[in-house]
């Protein structure tokens, strides 16, 4: 069954090609036309599987979400969908939950930024001198958390943060119930997510630094610039496209990164203190079975993404002109 689904992807190309190859017999009247088709068809045929998948699983559902957001429906095929116009949006915007979850999403993003930008830049700058085998070992170690399955990461952190027997409380001598207290639950989610991605971000910044032409720094030093001046006025500006990319990634993906942790560790609690926008959407759709409301939230999410991505891309473009 599984492999059948997999093979399903390739045949469109072949079958179209085969059909195309058979065409001269069926359309002998216009060989010139056939020649033309034959010349221009190949790239489209090669693109066909990918584009069909994109349309079926990304763009067509996106359009459906827009449609769905104007209906009231409970996801059960047998119940009718009721057209409610913009009712879902009104309902959504009037729930206090939405505002709070947006705010929590912002807090999470701001909380993760030090792990994806701050710490990596500091570490990458401080460790530029470490080369050779030692560098390889460090790379391997800091990158390891990225490979830990999110749920496995959640499991080990639940154990580390256990209020009575966990290593964290026993080493610190505290008895904080990290994951079940409103303030610390959010903090824990941020730190665990940060732990997952910090090594990856360090490597991205290191690669970005390695891509900077060392002549600029050398020239500035010859001109008498101090090390910190070189860092502030040459290295960081040249690094800014990399940093803009990391910020963009954090903004777009942080809700996604935190989802498995929230779903397994706090379920959005305690008292909703870790329910971010992503988790709220999931609850609307799959807990309350309120498809219209979830779709409306999805549309707002999408529009928000576009605005943020446009702003950050523009910023990155402006910054990247430094290295002309």
């Amino acid at each position, binding site marked *: *069954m*599984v492999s059948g689904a*997999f093979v399903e*992807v390739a045949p469109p190309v072949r079958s179209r090609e085969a059909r195309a190859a058979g065409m001269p017999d069926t359309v002998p009247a216009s060989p010139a036309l056939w020649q033309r088709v034959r010349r221009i068809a*190949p*790239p*489209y045929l*090669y693109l066909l*599987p*990918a*584009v069909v*998948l*994109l349309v*079926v*699983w*990304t*763009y067509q*559902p996106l359009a*459906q*979400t827009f449609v*769905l957001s104007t209906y009231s429906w409970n*996801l059960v*095929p047998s119940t009718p969908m009721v057209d409610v116009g913009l009712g879902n949006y009104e309902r959504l915007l009037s729930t206090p939950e939405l505002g709070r979850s947006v705010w929590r999403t912002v807090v999470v993003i701001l909380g993760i930024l030090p792990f994806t930008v701050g710490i990596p830049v*500091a*570490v990458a700058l401080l*460790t530029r*001198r*470490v080369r050779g085998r030692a560098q390889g*070992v*460090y790379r*391997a*170690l*800091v*990158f*390891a*958390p990225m*490979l*830990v*399955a999110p*749920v*496995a990461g959640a*499991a*080990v*952190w*639940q154990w580390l943060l256990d209020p009575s027997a966990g290593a964290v409380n026993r080493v610190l001598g505290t008895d904080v119930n990290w994951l079940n207290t409103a303030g610390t639950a959010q903090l824990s989610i941020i730190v665990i997510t940060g732990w997952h991605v910090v090594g*990856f971000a360090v490597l991205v910044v290191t*690669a970005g630094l390695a891509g900077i032409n060392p002549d600029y*720094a*050398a020239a500035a030093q010859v001109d008498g610039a101090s090390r910190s001046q070189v860092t502030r006025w040459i290295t960081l500006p040249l690094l800014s496209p990399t940093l803009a990319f990391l910020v963009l990634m954090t903004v*777009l993906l942080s809700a*996604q990164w935190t*989802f498995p942790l929230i779903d*397994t560790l706090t379920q959005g609690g305690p008292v909703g203190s870790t329910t971010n926008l992503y988790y709220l*959407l*999931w609850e609307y*759709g799959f807990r309350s079975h309120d*498809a219209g409301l979830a779709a409306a939230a*999805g549309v707002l*999410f*999408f529009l928000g993404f576009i605005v943020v991505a446009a702003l950050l891309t523009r910023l990155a473009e402006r910054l990247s002109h430094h290295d002309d």
Partner: protein
Amino acid sequence: MTTDEVVGESSRGRRLGGHVVLGVLSLACVFPIYWLYATSLRAPQDVYSLSVLPWPLSTASYTEAFAKNDVLGMLFNTGVIAVLSALGQLLVALLAAYAFAAWRFPLQRLLYLMFVGTWLVPFQATMLPNYVLLSRLGLLETLAGVIVPTLCSALGVLLLREHLNSFPKELLDAARMDGRSSWSTLWTVVVPALRPALAALGILLAISAWNEYFWPAMVLQRSNAVVQLGLRSFMGTEGNDWGPLMATAGLACLPVFVLYLVLQRHIVNAFVRSGLK
């Protein structure tokens, strides 16, 4: 090298400082992973011990984990998903990237933007219609339902296109002169040359598919067919049975870590490249 000369003798101190910073960060990153495996290897009565070395070693937690859950079955299912999903994504992405790199054609830019644009479509904006479509196709709660919707990887298309763009066009032209079809050129000229990039991307995709949580959670609902979901329900039902829980979590990560130990540099490079675009 030139900067080294300018800085002179202070570079040694800086190098030491660099080792300290990286050492602390490495420790912070690795400690939870170490603790995961350390706990899983302690004897049941020592699970709460804080000693750094798990001694005496015991496999009791693993035995219990296997007894409580069909861990091997879950690992097998997850492996099937990871391998098929990675292979499918590689094939689809290879064909698309080949089209972009080997031809100039109308609508090329628009079609390319379609792939780039997927970055802007958050998963949560498409999940409900996808769920409805899967249920209509009868693919809910099947492994095929987990795999099929992920088969087009925009990341794969973009990365492979980049690799193919640096591929010498003369080779493609020479193959065409020889009268080879584009299909045979792809498999006899392009794929052999692209093998390292395909391998790196394939590993990246397989690891991502192995670790994927959200999509399987949605398609498979409450069943425990894949290891991430099995782990979740284990956490829910036996939350405080730390030894077996850590053993299951350890097994869920083990294949990826083994792959990582063998292919460390390639995996890191693949991930970083995917981040740099």
